[in-house]
């Protein structure tokens, strides 16, 4: 998995989405249902996203898998804490959905074996 192959580029895009997620903290929407990224979430999203990007830059697939597992774990924590008095990531169901998207995406990309370019069909 490198910056020049399709899997690497997909992992880069997903990692970049994680890094960019704090932009949701700038939302001034009054309905307040859209992705809540605040408090601990402001650290978790970009940190895990950076791990995924590092994995591609250093051609270390394991980093991508670990980042994906981290997002999936954060999604699980968010799911079971959403609506309770203890809400570590201070997010909601939308936050859970975004964490799941990036986590499943990175895990899928990280765990899919590459094939030699000559075997790829258009």
């Amino acid at each position, binding site marked *: 998995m490198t910056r020049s192959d*399709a*899997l690497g*580029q*997909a992992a880069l895009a*997903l990692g970049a989405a994680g890094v960019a997620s704090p932009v949701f903290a700038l939302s001034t929407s009054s309905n*307040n*249902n*859209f*992705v*809540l990224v605040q408090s601990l979430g402001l650290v978790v999203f970009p940190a895990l996203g950076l791990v995924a990007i590092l994995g591609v830059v250093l051609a270390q697939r394991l980093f991508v898998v670990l980042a994906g597992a981290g997002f999936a774990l954060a999604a699980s924590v968010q*799911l079971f804490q*959403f*609506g*309770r008095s203890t809400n570590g990531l201070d997010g*909601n*169901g*939308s*936050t*859970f*959905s*975004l964490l*799941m*998207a*990036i986590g*499943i*995406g990175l895990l*899928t*990309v990280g765990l*899919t*074996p*590459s*094939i030699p370019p000559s*075997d*790829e*069909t*258009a």
Partner: protein
Amino acid sequence: MSKEAGRVTDAPVVGDDSRTTRALVGILRVGVALLWIENAGWKKPPDFTSLHKYATYAVDYPVFSPFTWVIEHVVLPHFTIFGWMTLLLEASLGAFLLVGLATRLWALLGVGQSLAIALSVLNAPNEWEWSYYLMILAHVALFASAAGRSFGLDGVLRPMWRASSNRVPQLLLRLS
């Protein structure tokens, strides 16, 4: 999977597979994903109060009597389970459509969930019924265009899934 001149391809299933067309299909997919992501935000456990209000619309303003019966006698008495199922389904719809993974499967599930919502609230006051028809049609468009192949993970992963003889990749090939 589309076939061109007898060959199986991974090309988007649209008449014109130009970059612009693919980008527009990708925008449609991400837009529909954001719809579900936002709607996962207000389904709040453990009591799902707001969702419960909309579910009772199916009984108070019935659209289709068998559906009303199911809501009244099956869903409302076990509402906590139903609330969790709805949250998980809608958050998953948002997640999988956002990254474009197994998109055709999730487009079909989106049609089903949109239909369930329509059957709950279509006759309620101040509802615009075309909102729900358009939701259904948007998911039909995602299915028809195999939208995950346009700037989605389906497009990236299909060649690898095809190269594998395992069941899971072969299944994902069909669902994408």
